[in-house]
């Protein structure tokens, strides 16, 4: 959980962000997937390829997983997975 507590100024300094750190309501673009094999393929099947815009929408009642809007669909992913997805933040 500590990722969410980080304050705004850090955003400038930090160079690589993970999807797990994206706060609900914010938008990012996928940079690359830091996983291989089956899991990578699963995510790609769902439309998670580099360059895809992702919006974090809301958390589940117990805090994990989080629902993301990807190519029009709402997809729930566990944190263990989103930790492995490297993103670039998009300023609105």
């Amino acid at each position: 959980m500590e990722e969410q507590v980080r304050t705004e100024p850090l955003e400038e300094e930090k160079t690589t962000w993970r999807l797990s750190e994206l706060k609900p309501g914010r938008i990012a673009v996928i940079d690359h997937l830091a996983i291989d094999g089956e899991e990578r393929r699963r995510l790609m099947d769902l439309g998670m390829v580099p360059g895809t815009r992702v919006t974090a929408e809301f958390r589940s009642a117990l805090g994990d997983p989080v629902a993301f809007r990807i190519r029009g669909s709402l997809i729930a992913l566990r944190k263990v997975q989103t930790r492995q997805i490297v993103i670039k933040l998009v300023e609105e």
Partner: protein
Amino acid sequence: MSEQATTPEELLSRADALRGELGDSHSRFIEDIYQQAAEVADKVVSQTGQAGRFNLDRALDRVLTSPVWGLPIMVLMLGVVLWLTISGANIPSGWLATLLLDWVYNWLHTAFQAIAAPWWIEGFLVDGVYLAVAWVTSVMLPPMAIFFPLFTLLEDFGYLPRVAFNLDRAFAKAGAHGKQALTMTMGFGCNAAGVIATRIIDSPRERLLAIITNNFSLCNGRWPTQILIATIFIGALVPPVWSATASMLAVLGVAVLGVGLTFGVSWGLTKTVLKGEASTFSLELPPYRPPQILRTLYTSVIDRTLIVLWRAVTMAAPAGAVIWLLGNIDISGVSIAEHLVTFLDPIGWFVGLNGVILLAYVVAIPANEIVIPTILMLTLMVGRAAGADAGVMIEFDTARETASVLVGLGGWTLLTGINLMLFSLMHNPCSTTIMTIYQETKSLKWTTVATLLPVVMGLITTGAITWIARALHLV
């Protein structure tokens, strides 16, 4: 041109070599598809109006998955469905019982006597086959005709994936897959269907957890048992206005306990024989869709309720025949049923049940639906033979009259009722489900585990409760 492979092994090693040379060009292939898809979609789709519904969906999700309201709403929804089922089924159940167990039953006896049929034909057909069918119908039809449509409405609305979304973390903690929540809710209809539904779980270990624990979802054959017993023993403890609510809370308690057992057993298996990490989870949350209420009512009554009822009837008819035979074939002056019940009674007493209940669960291995008819028929036969209220014609128009049979003839107490509700939650799956488990797992070992684990748990639980109650002199 390279030479062509002539054996499968050569083919595989050549593919392997090429893969090494290629790097991740395959990923690029998928990326290309998506890029293409995005370009095409961009060209052919245009947003001309308001995207209003997305916002409504978002607002609904905010509430239904909220950290504060998400879980209470879930329990509340199940509670409301059960309350509507229990209070709505009460009156039609009474009508059906009057019609089938009173009028038609007596008319059949009159008719058989009019044609002077031998007593054993009359008994076999009317007191055996017909009675079991009539009982199963009046106990099952009304609650299922209410429960299934309500459940289908929730399903068509799009609520089930939200349940999976909300519970996922708990499943992850138990080492299980979040989609197990979906197969669990399918089990609320039928466990065999729930077991087949586990195909959506791609990790074999987690799929096995989902299969083994599906039996902790009360199925259509067990909801009516729960409802009837709760109405008789729990609903009767409070003033009549509160009876439906008290019964609902009791059944809800058992259902929620079932969900708890699903977590607990998954966790236990993960820590012992099915060791492993929770794998990944990705679930698409579909948009909420306003259900087509009339069509849902129609299809869930025709396609589900009647099909389920038909299965129950085809199971009840032979079971009724068997029970009648057990009750009417004597060995050294005492019926087989009595021999069996007398033999099982001490074991039943030890775990807070009784011989009739244990025998009923053996007879009802093919289908949970016939537990209640079997219990009632056996109680009547054995009770009467034992001399109590001999010759009294008992009517079952209301739950209270059913209660008088169980309490008066069968000697049931509140503890027996509670234990039966628990044992109904925790006992072996029906034979159809066992066969399905074998087909899906292709493993005798896991089929055996899935079959025996719940019975052992059930007997230990009811036994423990009974001995604690006895130690505290509650009974």
